């Protein structure tokens, strides 16, 4: 035994670690210590094993890996001496968790102990161990009922505490046990509680003048379980509960903890109105307490009491509303949840007014929660449309940037349906935008409404009595849109909405059409492909296609409220998962999954020609979906037509991806025509028009791509990003295949755009398809909505979903991702999981 090889003492190691000035220094010290511990382990050193174990525990606490020491715990446990065993067991508890198989070996060591252990501790530990067992295997509960009951007669507090806990848990897992304890032990437990409450001062258990509050609380808890749903048992405990509720001192935390538990028990057991009044009074006292902890638990308790006695809770409304404005985030959050539960038809106007007023002054981090709740309240209880619109516009003006997409989409649906309020709404929005132009969502809604109802704004159509007259010129209206376009120059969706609004206004305000054309033309050079493409298209509509312009710029057909509500059902108030496929894009106006909007928009329904053959449709097709003809000539496949439809859809749904469902219906529309006819029609048309694309159509195929919209996003990316990356099969199972296509954002090497394609390999369709992904910390992941949530069988169609991954360690670490896919197959939930690490290098 060499005394110099044993390394440092524990104390010295801790001291030297604490003396480190930098993380690197600390790592070096730890590395050195670990090396010497490893050496000692491989030498099978007995003398310093427990000291090394203590060191390992400290190192473990600092967050370094210590798995190599796990077996040392077992050796220590098997050692004869007490100090070794003590440290061994501690190490076992800290370094291992219950999922590790090494633990199986420990049971062998345990079996070698003599079974006789001194009285109270064996009882306590047996009871706690039984709790674990019945939690894991509830079927075994019946074996424990009698032994557990015998513990209730003990006097030792530790045994009683754990015995009561065991009985409570037994009652929770087994109704037989509950019945048994209820019949035979309710009275006994009431008596135990009485004794504890009335017990004389006992220094050993005394906490601020109360004998063992922990025991009080556990007794009250088991009485709650026994009294719930049983009148006899409830009657039996009435007196003692009243005594606890009235006699317990409430100036210290321990007393309040007991009162809190007591109130909960009173609320859960069968009705005794006298007790309830007592409990509600205690809560009222708690609520006005100066101690934040007490107010917090009062709110918590009121939330549970609301199902029992909502009237009583309503009485505290004013105080609760004050708590929403508290300095303490925990209290604010609780109070807001409670207010949300308190709202009903009668108080919605006053409560939402209070909340909206508060929205103005609250701090940033609370605005998100508050806005969400207000929107949800307003939607749920709105007495009439005009009130709803008023409130929503107030919220948008105050905290527009916190409003979720589906909320303002719903607002637009409602506006579109309230035909008598169109004028009122657009004027209100116009005023609001002048004041709160910094709220982007407000601006979006305003831009949409001005585009749709611009003439009502200018000509004061549909004035309501309460409205103040307002003079707005065409020029003012266009100013709003122009400045929005400038102010939000980086936001694609807003600017795209501006462009559509301008196109629509060109019809509504014929005299300003030159100005509109100029603004649209400014976007021709936009670096954002979508905007560039649309502005060129719109420009050509304005210049060369006056004959269809008015038809194109018709007002949006009324959006179907019931469909929208139905699709949103259940998504409120819970946050909508980002990977949900069914996010509806209302702004685009093609939310309805049918061909109807298109027909309306083009005003084709007036002539009785079937849609697919109408020349207007073909024309539009040619005008807007130029790459249809290229692709058709090239391949003549359905796929190509689909891309044509896609472009057409894009025009109408600017800035946002059309949802797959609507796309497929268009797809059906087009595929009903045979290919040659379509191509023929297109060629005809192009020869009649003066479109710039004409020449290239004749020269055949590709050159046309350069002229108009053929610069599809992926194409553009490939050109700009330099290197291209091969697609990979990211995941494949017997039922599903996922392929990833990669592209880079130009000028941003860290960001990778991934297009995930999902293909169903089985013969049954998958519904409610959800794809989730998680990435390590050096990556940031953003999931766009999936194109659909239904995946057709046998590869007859696919779902695509775009992902954006930002790699903060670009060049050092490559991408890695863990994924989970959930879907329903014949109404059964299926989950698949996997890890993707075969990303191409350099991403």
């Amino acid at each position: 035994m060499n005394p110099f090889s044993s390394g440092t003492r524990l104390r010295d190691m801790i001291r030297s670690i604490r003396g480190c000035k930098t993380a690197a220094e600390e790592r070096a010290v730890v590395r050195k210590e670990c090396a010497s511990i490893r050496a000692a382990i491989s030498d099978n050193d007995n003398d310093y094993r427990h000291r090394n174990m203590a060191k390992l525990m400290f190192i473990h606490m600092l967050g370094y890996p210590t798995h190599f020491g796990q077996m040392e715990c077992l050796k220590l446990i098997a050692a004869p001496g007490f100090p070794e065993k003590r440290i061994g067991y501690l190490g076992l508890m800290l370094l291992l968790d219950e999922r590790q198989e090494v633990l199986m070996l420990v049971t062998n060591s345990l079996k070698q102990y003599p079974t006789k252990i001194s009285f109270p501790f064996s009882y306590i530990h047996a009871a706690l161990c039984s709790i674990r067992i019945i939690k894991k295997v509830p079927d075994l509960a019946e074996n424990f009922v009698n032994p557990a009951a015998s513990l209730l007669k003990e006097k030792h507090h530790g045994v009683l505490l754990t015995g009561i806990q065991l009985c409570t848990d037994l009652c929770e897992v087994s109704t037989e046990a509950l019945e048994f304890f209820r019949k035979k032990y309710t009275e006994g437990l009431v008596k135990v509680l009485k004794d504890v409450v009335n017990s004389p001062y006992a220094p050993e258990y005394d906490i601020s003048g109360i004998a063992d509050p922990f025991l009080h609380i556990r007794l009250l808890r088991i009485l709650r379980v026994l009294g719930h749903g049983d009148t006899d048992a409830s009657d039996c405990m009435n007196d003692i509960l009243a005594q606890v509720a009235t006699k317990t001192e409430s100036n210290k935390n321990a007393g309040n903890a007991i009162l809190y538990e007591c109130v909960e028990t009173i609320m859960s057991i069968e009705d005794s109105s006298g007790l309830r009044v007592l409990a509600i009074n205690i809560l009222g006292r708690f609520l006005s307490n100066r101690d934040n902890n007490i107010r917090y638990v009062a709110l918590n308790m009121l939330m549970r009491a609301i199902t029992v006695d909502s009237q009583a809770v309503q009485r505290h409304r004013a105080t609760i509303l004050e708590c929403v404005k508290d300095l303490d985030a925990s209290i604010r959050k609780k109070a807001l949840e409670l207010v949300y539960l308190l709202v009903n038809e009668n108080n919605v106007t006053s409560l939402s007014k209070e909340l909206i007023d508060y929205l103005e002054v609250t701090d940033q981090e609370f605005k998100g929660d508050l806005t969400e709740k207000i929107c949800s309240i307003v939607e749920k209880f709105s007495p009439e449309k005009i009130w709803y619109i008023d409130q929503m516009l107030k919220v948008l003006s105050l905290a527009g940037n916190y409003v979720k997409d589906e909320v303002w989409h719903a607002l637009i649906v409602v506006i579109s349906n309230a035909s008598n309020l169109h004028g009122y709404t657009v004027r209100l929005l116009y005023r609001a935008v002048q004041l709160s132009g910094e709220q982007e969502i407000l601006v979006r809604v305003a831009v949409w409404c001005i585009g749709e109802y611009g003439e009502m704004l200018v000509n004061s159509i549909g004035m309501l009595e309460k409205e103040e007259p307002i003079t707005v010129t065409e020029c003012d209206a266009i100013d709003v849109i122009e400045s929005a376009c400038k102010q939000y120059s980086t936001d694609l969706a807003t600017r795209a909405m501006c462009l559509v609004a301008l196109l629509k206004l060109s019809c509504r305000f014929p005299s300003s059409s030159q100005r509109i054309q100029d603004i649209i033309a400014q976007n021709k050079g936009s670096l954002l492909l979508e905007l560039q493409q649309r502005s060129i298209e719109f420009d050509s509509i304005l210049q060369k296609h006056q004959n269809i312009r008015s038809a194109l710029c018709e007002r949006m057909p009324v959006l179907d409220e019931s469909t929208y509500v139905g699709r949103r059902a259940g998504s409120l108030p819970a946050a909508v998962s980002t990977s949900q496929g069914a996010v509806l894009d209302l702004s685009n106006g093609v939310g309805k999954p049918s061909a109807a909007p298109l027909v309306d928009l083009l005003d084709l329904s007036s002539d009785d020609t079937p849609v697919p053959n109408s020349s207007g449709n073909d024309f539009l097709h040619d005008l807007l979906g130029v790459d249809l003809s290229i692709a058709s000539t090239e391949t003549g496949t359905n796929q190509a037509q689909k891309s044509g439809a896609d472009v057409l859809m894009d025009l109408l749904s600017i800035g946002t991806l059309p949802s797959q469902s609507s796309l497929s219906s268009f797809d059906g529309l087009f595929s009903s025509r045979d290919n040659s006819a379509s191509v023929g029609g297109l060629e005809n048309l192009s020869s009649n028009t003066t479109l710039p694309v004409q020449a290239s159509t004749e020269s055949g195929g590709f050159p046309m791509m350069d002229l108009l919209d053929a610069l599809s996003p992926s194409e553009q990316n490939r050109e700009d990003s330099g290197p291209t990356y091969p697609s990979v099969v990211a995941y494949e199972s017997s039922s599903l295949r996922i392929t990833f296509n990669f592209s880079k954002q130009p000028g941003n090497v860290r960001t990778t755009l991934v297009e995930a394609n999902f293909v169903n390999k089985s013969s049954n369709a998958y519904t409610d398809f959800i794809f989730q992904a998680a990435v390590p910390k050096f990556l940031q992941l953003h999931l766009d909505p999936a194109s659909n949530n239904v995946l057709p069988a046998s590869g007859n169609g696919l779902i695509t979903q775009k992902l954006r991954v930002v790699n903060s360690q670009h060049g050092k670490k490559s991408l890695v991702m863990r994924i989970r896919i959930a879907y329903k197959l014949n109404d059964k939930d299926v989950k698949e999981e996997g890890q993707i690490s075969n990303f191409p290098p350099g991403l």
Partner: protein
Amino acid sequence: MIPISRNNKNSGHLFPLIQRQILSPPLIIIIPSSKMIHFVLLISRQGKVRLTKWYSPYSQKERSKVIRELSSLILTRAPRLCNFVEWRGFKVVYKRYASLYFCMCINQDDNELEVLEIIHHYVEILDRYFGSVCELDLIFNFHKAYFILDEILIAGELQESSKKTVARLVAAQDSLVEAAKEQANSVSFIISQATK
């Protein structure tokens, strides 16, 4: 009675664990519920971990994530606010004693005030054991802090409400260790080892 930190060395902290939470990926942590206390954490004001005790299974990775999240959540709260924070559908009850935050994670419907009382119970026992305990005592004698905690809580349940009993048990174990040490150092033992 509760000590004020006598250690000022600690302010030279190395790497604050308080970090901004980056957009977290979907939750993977799954915890079987219906346990009184899921874990106990002692964190210093600088975000250093002084003691961790896990009563529900968490992987090593999850553990460090939990610690990071909670220290950024709790250490940033102003004084005199309430002692509860809601976190991932659970509640964390915390209390600050001098430079140390004692945190316990419980279920939504557990009694927060009682848990505050349990924390205080533990601190009082530590205080008696070390004689006016301070953070340095818990750093150098972290194993003792664990031994004491193990006498109060087992498997996340309270097992003993008497401070005296806990103190007696820990003292008895300590004396067993002392006896073993003495025996090992006694002359006769050394001779018997040497002549083996």
